[in-house]
């Protein structure tokens, strides 16, 4: 059983709700959130931004040989999704019977990502689901 770390707790908002940030100086949005805007440097004015989770698949792959963490989940899909509101985001893609292909529209669903044995924490996360 892992002991949950403070860094994990800090990521809950991002993992549950796709909360990244936006540079108010230039309008560039980031996920995961960045401390400093890549374009504006020290002129950055970073502010939380909640992405609505809608987007489309720009790349994906089927994982058949998983790490131990996901040994019961294989085969499963992971990919890169271009959010309608800006950045490209990595994530698991739910195989709901819909077509998983480049260009498929997806939404951000709320799912279990990983369960730490019988006594550890349950880790919840966004996953992308074809719509």
């Amino acid at each position, binding site marked *: 059983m892992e002991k949950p770390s403070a860094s994990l707790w800090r990521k*809950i*908002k991002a993992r*549950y*709700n796709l909360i990244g940030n936006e540079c108010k100086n230039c309008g560039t949005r980031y996920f995961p959130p960045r401390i400093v805007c890549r374009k504006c440097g020290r002129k950055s004015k970073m502010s939380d931004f*909640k992405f609505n989770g809608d987007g489309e698949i720009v790349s994906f792959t089927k994982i058949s040989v998983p790490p131990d963490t996901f*040994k*019961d*989940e294989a085969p499963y899909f992971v990919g890169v999704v271009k959010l309608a509101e800006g950045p490209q985001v990595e994530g698991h893609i*739910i195989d*709901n*019977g*819909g077509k998983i292909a480049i260009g498929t529209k997806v939404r951000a*669903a*709320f*799912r*279990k*990502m990983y369960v730490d044995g019988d006594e550890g924490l*349950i880790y*919840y996360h966004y*996953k992308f689901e074809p719509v």
Partner: protein
Amino acid sequence: MAGIVGYGAHLPIYRIKVEEIAKVWNDDASAIKNGLNISEKTVPGRDEDAATIAVEAARRAVKHAGIPATQIGAVYVGSESHPYAVKPTATIVMEAIGTGNNVMCADLEFACKAGTAGIQMAIGLVDSNMIKYGMSIGSDTSQGRPGDALEYTASAGGAAFIVGKEKNEIIANILKTISYTSDTPDFWRREGASFPTHSGRFTGEPGYFRHVINASKLLFEETGMKPSDFKYAVFHQPNGKFPTNAAKQLGFSENQIKPGLLTPIIGNTYSGSSMLGLAATLDVAKAGDMILVTSFGSGAGSDSFAIEVTENTDGKRKRIVPVSALIEKDRKYIDYSTYLKNRGSIMKT
């Protein structure tokens, strides 16, 4: 009294048919289908539990209500399959819908009626002006012991309701709610036990029917209403047969219970059962329609509600994901082995 300002539902995409389970145990599938009035049930995905179902339903409810989640002052989650024994499901939900930290939260358990108990609590808080909006969710990934009759019905799903008192936001007025409660040992699950135990036929008359019938009659007495005053009725649905019999005993027709009778095609979603039935009924109800809802939780008790649909319902309807769409969407039929894997009963070593 406060009314419903929004609701949302969620069902997993996986289904298993009665025939598939019956094949494993050498049961007579047609006898079970006729006896329980059920043909298939939902099964949670490996990445779903009562919390994920609650969050999906809650997010849809917020969208339907069209209110800022930050104005929700209470979140209650009723379930008998909370993912943690200690650590609330409600905190996962409040974080995932973004209520902010100024919110009352608690997990509730009253077998299959904890979600409707939460609606009653939210009504009290809203009517006493302690909060502006309150949310209650019934969500379960219910358990059925392999080979037991419950295995044919125990399914997964949930629904979330938001109550408030702004007249221009209410889609359905809650005119009255009452409860009928007793200490009845019809069905239970001890701490640490994987599956519930039930008292067989005892769950019927002294359990389900006594409470559902008496709660409904108590509501009639206190409101002066009768079955013919209601366009629709929704009863808790442990199988397809009990609610049909209860409706008949009370004097309701098959047409009155039809929109909300979901168990024959999705199974018994436990805490989600009567709330999903209400959601499906509100999906089709029109302004002025009266709806009776009577839940049931073993142990035992029933909450009964008299609900009147308002003119605001049409304006918000386009934001609803109807229960019928969730039932039809992306259905995936699985075999018994996959069912065991999804339930976490078998895994790689």
